[in-house]
């Protein structure tokens, strides 16, 4: 599952004027900053008085992209689902799993049977009781064969280990696994695994996409396509996660979730007071936003945005050439230059820095070193040069084609790739960039086995459980489609599987870190940058927080307005 970034215009490749536009916008935004700092400086927020947070008000939220359906595997759908549905369990910032719809659970000694006690008296907002049977139906749907019910996030984690989900008592759910899988609870905590009303699900995909029904703090009232989703408060809400700041219904009356694809409009609407909170602060306004608003940021776990090197044929079948490519460009400088500090560099290609198993030392691997790159390439037999300075082996030039799409890369990132292209040339690489529009990219253009040496992708997850998705080798003729490096290492896979079955936290982390070191050392993937979720909130709005399940969805359940003098 991935965050698809940027506006549709970028996706279509309509961008001839944008560079100019960006500059103009930057200048004007800067001017507007100067004008407004003085106005804003006078207004300091004041907490609500002793009677608890103030009730009422509609949160005007400026979001970015509009998905085609209000639930699904794309994070744009997770953001929305977090508002109207509840999960079985929740994941705290420190990675600990805490009760949500399940008040408690036990795990059998062989780690294959989970028994969950479901919170009593919870109802979906269509009146259907939320009991063990309802949860079981959801889970069986995610992992079943009906394409309309299948869950594209849960399935790749659980399809190998899942056996069944059954209600053994009205409020007792049993999940049985074929093999132990410790990250199960992490998977259940992700918003795409929010529990939906089984009665509502029977209405079919078309109706559910438009008006899904959960048991969450907000109810989807209306989706005005192309404009907004209107949420209203669930007045009977009684199933908040245990780590929320309060229990019972939300403080605000609802959310006006507006789709504002253009960043000037989105951030501008916060400046003019037309929005109370906006998503994805533009790089040009990053400093301004931090000086003026409350800024929330979540760096997503799982993989970083990384370069996957195609290891199944030359030149990157040779680990020395892969490492040489890593040394050949100053990726850190390229990223810092391009994102203006709005996104940090990430050198650890295996795991993003917010994952609990992250080894920070690997965040400094493969620093810029052309000498080392040249040495490795010489050793690998790329010793000849053509007249352009590109290395040759057996008469073949050292060509690296990088496939990428605006669907996975913010537009600023393209500059970083151009820097890498230039720098790698000094070591004798001929780097060709293959920008691909979203539709073509999803259709597989520039992604075939002979189409690329490098592809830029990522996959958001809580942490190292992502290794299963990335590094599961092909089995019985079944290709692992999520392994674009085509790097298959049975030893690595064994470590990953052992880690998944290890319920001692220290032991599991050690195993995952062993895998992590191995991945970085073999350089089948090279780190680039991270994915983040940022929110800027007006001083009028307090206690908005970001979910730490994995994606960082905005949570408006605890949010409340304060009077600003």
């Amino acid at each position: 599952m991935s965050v698809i970034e940027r506006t549709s215009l970028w996706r279509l490749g309509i961008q001839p004027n944008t560079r100019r536009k960006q500059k103009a916008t930057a200048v004007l935004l800067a001017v507007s900053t100067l004008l407004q700092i003085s106005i804003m400086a006078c207004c300091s927020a004041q907490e609500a008085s002793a009677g608890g947070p103030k009730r009422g008000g509609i949160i005007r939220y400026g979001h970015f992209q509009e998905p085609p359906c209000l639930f699904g595997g794309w994070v744009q759908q997770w953001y929305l689902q977090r508002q109207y549905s509840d999960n079985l369990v929740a994941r705290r910032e420190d990675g600990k799993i805490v009760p949500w719809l399940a008040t408690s659970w036990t795990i059998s000694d062989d780690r294959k049977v989970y028994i969950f006690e479901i919170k009593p008296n919870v109802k979906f907002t269509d009146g259907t009781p939320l009991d063990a049977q309802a949860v079981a139906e959801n889970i069986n749907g995610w992992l079943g064969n009906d394409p309309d019910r299948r869950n594209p996030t849960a399935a790749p984690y659980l399809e190998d280990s899942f056996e069944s989900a059954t209600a053994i008592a009205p409020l007792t759910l049993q999940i049985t696994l074929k093999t132990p899988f410790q990250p199960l609870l992490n998977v259940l905590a992700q918003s795409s695994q929010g529990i939906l009303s089984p009665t509502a699900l029977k209405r079919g995909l078309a109706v559910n996409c438009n008006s899904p029904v959960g048991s969450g703090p907000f109810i989807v009232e209306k989706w005005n396509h192309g404009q907004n989703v209107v949420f209203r408060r669930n007045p009977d809400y009684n199933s908040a996660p245990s780590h929320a700041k309060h229990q019972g219904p939300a403080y605000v009356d609802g959310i006006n979730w507006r789709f504002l694809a253009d960043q000037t409009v989105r951030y501008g609407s916060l400046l003019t007071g037309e929005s109370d909170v906006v998503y994805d602060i533009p790089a040009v306004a990053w400093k301004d936003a931090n000086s003026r608003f409350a800024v929330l940021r979540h760096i997503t776990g799982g993989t970083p945005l990384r370069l996957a090197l195609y290891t199944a044929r030359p030149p990157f079948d040779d680990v020395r050439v892969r490492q040489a490519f890593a040394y050949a460009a100053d990726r850190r400088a390229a990223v810092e230059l391009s994102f203006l500090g709005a996104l940090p560099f990430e050198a650890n290609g295996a795991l993003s820095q917010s994952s609990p198993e992250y080894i920070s030392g690997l965040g400094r691997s493969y620093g810029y070193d052309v000498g080392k790159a040249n040495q490795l390439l010489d050793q690998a037999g790329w010793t000849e040069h053509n007249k352009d300075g590109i290395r040759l082996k057996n008469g073949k030039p050292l060509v690296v084609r990088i496939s990428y799409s605006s669907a996975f890369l913010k537009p600023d990132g393209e500059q970083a790739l151009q820097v890498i292209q230039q720098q790698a040339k000094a070591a004798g690489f001929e780097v060709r960039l293959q920008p691909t529009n979203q539709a073509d990219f999803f259709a597989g253009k520039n992604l075939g086995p002979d189409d690329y040496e490098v592809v830029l992708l990522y996959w958001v997850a809580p942490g190292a459980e992502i290794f299963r998705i990335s590094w599961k080798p092909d089995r019985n003729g079944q290709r692992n489609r999520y392994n674009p490096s085509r790097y298959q290492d049975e030893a690595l896979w064994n470590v990953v599987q052992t880690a998944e079955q290890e319920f001692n936290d220290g032991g599991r982390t050690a195993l995952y870190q062993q895998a992590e070191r191995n991945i970085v050392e073999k350089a089948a993937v090279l780190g680039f940058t991270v994915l983040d979720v940022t929110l800027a909130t007006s001083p009028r709005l307090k206690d908005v927080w970001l979910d730490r399940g994995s994606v960082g969805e905005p949570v408006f359940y605890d949010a409340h307005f304060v009077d600003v003098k």
Partner: protein
Amino acid sequence: MRVNSAAHVRIGRLAGRFVSAATVVWLAATFTFLVQCLMPGDRAQIIINMASGNVGEASPAELAAVNAKYGFDQPLVLQYGKYIWGILHGDLGLSYQQHRPVLDIIAEQIGPTIILAVAALIAAWVIAVLTTVLVAGQDNMWSTLLSGIQVFLATVPPYWLATILLVVFAVQLRIVPVIGGNSPIGLVLPTSALALELSGFLGQIVRSEFTRVLEQPFVISARARGMGELGVRFRHVLRHAALPGITLSGWAIGKLLSGAILIEAVFARQGLGGVLVAATSSRDVPVVSGAILISAGLFAVTNMLVDLTYRIVDPRIKMT
């Protein structure tokens, strides 16, 4: 008898017009449908990848399920036949992504787009006519300046202009809201962004014709009758000078509909633009084809209206 046959001829010609318009629409639908189906890349693969938010070759079983569900496993001729048959019955199919009827999707979005396009056309005409009538044909600084501004407006990218208008008038001066929604005040900036460019085109055309007509004998005779300068310009000259502009308006509607797509994105306005862009980037064939079909239909209807308008403005023109 003569009257009757003349009427027949007229009806026949109207029918001819209608048939040619229908042909245009049919060709547009066919072209879009076929181009999208024949583009490299598997539609089932896109649907699966869009649903999971990731790329990667899906398993044969997964692909087969999706192919069967959407009928992609049928021969293309059959898919096309079904599509056209559906159109004839007012059914544009189901969206691959939204799982809703395409007609519903377009119906809820087309209103704001038409309002924007028409408002922009009217605004462009008002700007073009006022500036031309007041300034054209006068060999002075204002006339030169106007011409320069018109050329600038006609060539500046509306997307860029829109952003500048937005930052200046909404973020800075706060005269209009940043998020106008569907309110009349929210129409001001998008309309201006679209209309200013078009007014440049229209103004240039109307102005050159206007200058030519100003020197015609009937203008001199009107002046000789003692008519005031403004009266001459509005009552006599404009009527002649407007004809090429009206021709251009038919084309302009097409341009405005496509321009609206970009402008809607900038101003976060509801409309066909957002739908079309999203559908194109997910290759949602029924939605793209439907949107093209409806736009082509609008374009054809507008051009028929333009033809009729000619005769009102200049009764000498017979429909031939």
